[in-house]
């Protein structure tokens, strides 16, 4: 039973254009959402997060949008750069969970020159 779903295993985007990565969840008790970026042979690194009381959070080229009624969040990267090529994981934090994250399967983003 996947509580956090990233339905696109991969996404290819032209350099300079917008990359949009999507994530759906089923548990309405999720309180906080995070995006992580992972390069091959490295551990995931934190990218950006959003609390369930907000609908948008921005950090430089990265913006996360949360639509609670649709149980959907998205990560926008503008403009996309070659160094953004990586696997992106969406993760969700339930209330009272001792910070145990629930992870999506990841989306591999490929930025084409």
């Amino acid at each position, binding site marked *: 039973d996947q509580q*956090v779903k990233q339905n696109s*295993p991969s996404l290819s985007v032209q350099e300079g254009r917008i990359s949009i990565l999507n994530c759906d969840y089923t548990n309405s008790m999720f309180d*906080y959402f*995070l995006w992580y970026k992972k390069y091959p*042979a*490295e*551990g*995931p*690194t*934190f990218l950006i*997060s959003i609390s369930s009381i907000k609908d948008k959070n921005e950090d430089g080229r990265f913006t996360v949008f949360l639509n609670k009624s649709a149980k959907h969040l998205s990560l926008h990267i503008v403009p996309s750069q070659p160094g953004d090529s990586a696997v992106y*994981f969406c993760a969700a*934090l339930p209330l009272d969970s*001792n*910070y*145990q*994250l629930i*992870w*999506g*399967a*990841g989306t591999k983003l490929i930025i084409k020159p």
Partner: protein
Amino acid sequence: NAGVTQTPKFRILKIGQSMTLQCTQDMNHNYMYWYRQDPGMGLKLIYYSVGAGITDKGEVPNGYNVSRSTTEDFPLRLELAAPSQTSVYFCASSFHNEQFFGPGTRLTVL
């Protein structure tokens, strides 16, 4: 600050062998976690710890054991390795919501 360090980076085990994956963090985080990542899948939580002397099972604890005698160290023990334990193992630590990860250990059981 080294962050989260893991050793070894790679290991090949024979079925039935045992080993310990080491994890150390220097950020004074109370929370530490062990995950495994199988190909094409997200991270699955094996065990976690909320502080020295306290550990608890995650989603996939069978075949593993942990201990947390200090704030810094959180070793993961595999007893009687099985092919199903072939995976990449990540250790992480956190103070709050954001977890910081080590570089991973790639384990193959043959």
